[in-house]
């Protein structure tokens, strides 16, 4: 799989904050009954994390799990391991009603980095989400509308945000983020 291309193929932009292709990231959609011990064990086995609470996510490096809806999780695994992980999960969940699909290639993955306040401001220009640190802390994933497309966003660390959207609109989302991250467009709203 060494010849796989990410949606944005390494694009990067330096403005108010840095906007960059976050590269290939294994992503797996898992749907099932969260109360099922078998599912909980399978998630733990695949990611090392317990099931997250509503809207929460747990992430270490490129491995983690995020709450998508009451019956859907997004598992993050190293890109190269995604297919194997899917197979492992399917095997582990055999006999229970579930769905596991590799969606690593269905996504564009964008990193925003810079001063924390500016990263939040850039996102606040294009999402109707309260980007205040109290309301959008690390460890939470928010699915929303970024400009005109669906996206998921999270704060990975102070001054580090991640945006996930569908691959086909990756260029659009990247262009939007670069536009609103133009130099000299700081709002001065969130303390940096």
């Amino acid at each position, binding site marked *: 799989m060494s010849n796989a291309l990410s949606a944005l193929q390494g694009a990067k932009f330096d403005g108010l904050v840095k906007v960059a292709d976050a590269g290939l990231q294994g992503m797996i959609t898992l749907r099932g009954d969260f109360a099922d011990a078998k599912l909980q064990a399978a998630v733990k086995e695949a990611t090392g994390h317990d099931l997250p609470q509503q*809207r929460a996510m747990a992430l270490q490096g490129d491995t983690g799990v995020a709450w998508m809806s009451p019956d859907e999780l997004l598992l993050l695994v190293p890109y190269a391991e995604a297919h194997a992980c899917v197979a492992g999960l399917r095997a582990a969940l055999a006999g229970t009603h579930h769905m596991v699909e590799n969606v690593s290639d269905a996504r564009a993955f964008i990193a925003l980095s810079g001063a924390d306040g500016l990263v939040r401001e850039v996102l606040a220009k294009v999402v109707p989400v309260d980007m205040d640190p109290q309301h959008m802390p690390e460890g939470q994933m928010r*699915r929303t509308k970024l400009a005109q497309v*669906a996206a998921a966003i999270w704060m990975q660390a102070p001054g580090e945000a991640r945006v996930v959207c569908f691959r086909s609109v990756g260029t659009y989302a990247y262009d939007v983020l670069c536009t609103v991250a133009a130099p000299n467009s700081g709002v001065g709203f969130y303390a940096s």
Partner: protein
Amino acid sequence: MLTLHCPYCGVHADETELASGGEAHLKRFGPGASDEEFEGYLFMRENPKGVHFERWRHAYGCGKWFLAARCTNTLEVFGTYPAQTTEPPQHVRDAISAKRPGWKWREFS
């Protein structure tokens, strides 16, 4: 520009994240139904000034459908609740009764 609380993911969602889906609590009629029943199911809709029940989908969020009880006149929201029900839950009915005593909507009150 409404905000509605998504009962699934807990977000107070901006209207731009939502998709509306028309009237709630319709009973499906399929093969074997009379023309009148089928017409009612497909076409007959409430158009109240006041208490109303609607379907909304958190389309740009968790993707789940939920139901909302709100006032079409003042836009007051009495409650939102999961779509997996054929009738408004009691706590939502109570909330409406507290604000709009004597309300009636289709067979519910």
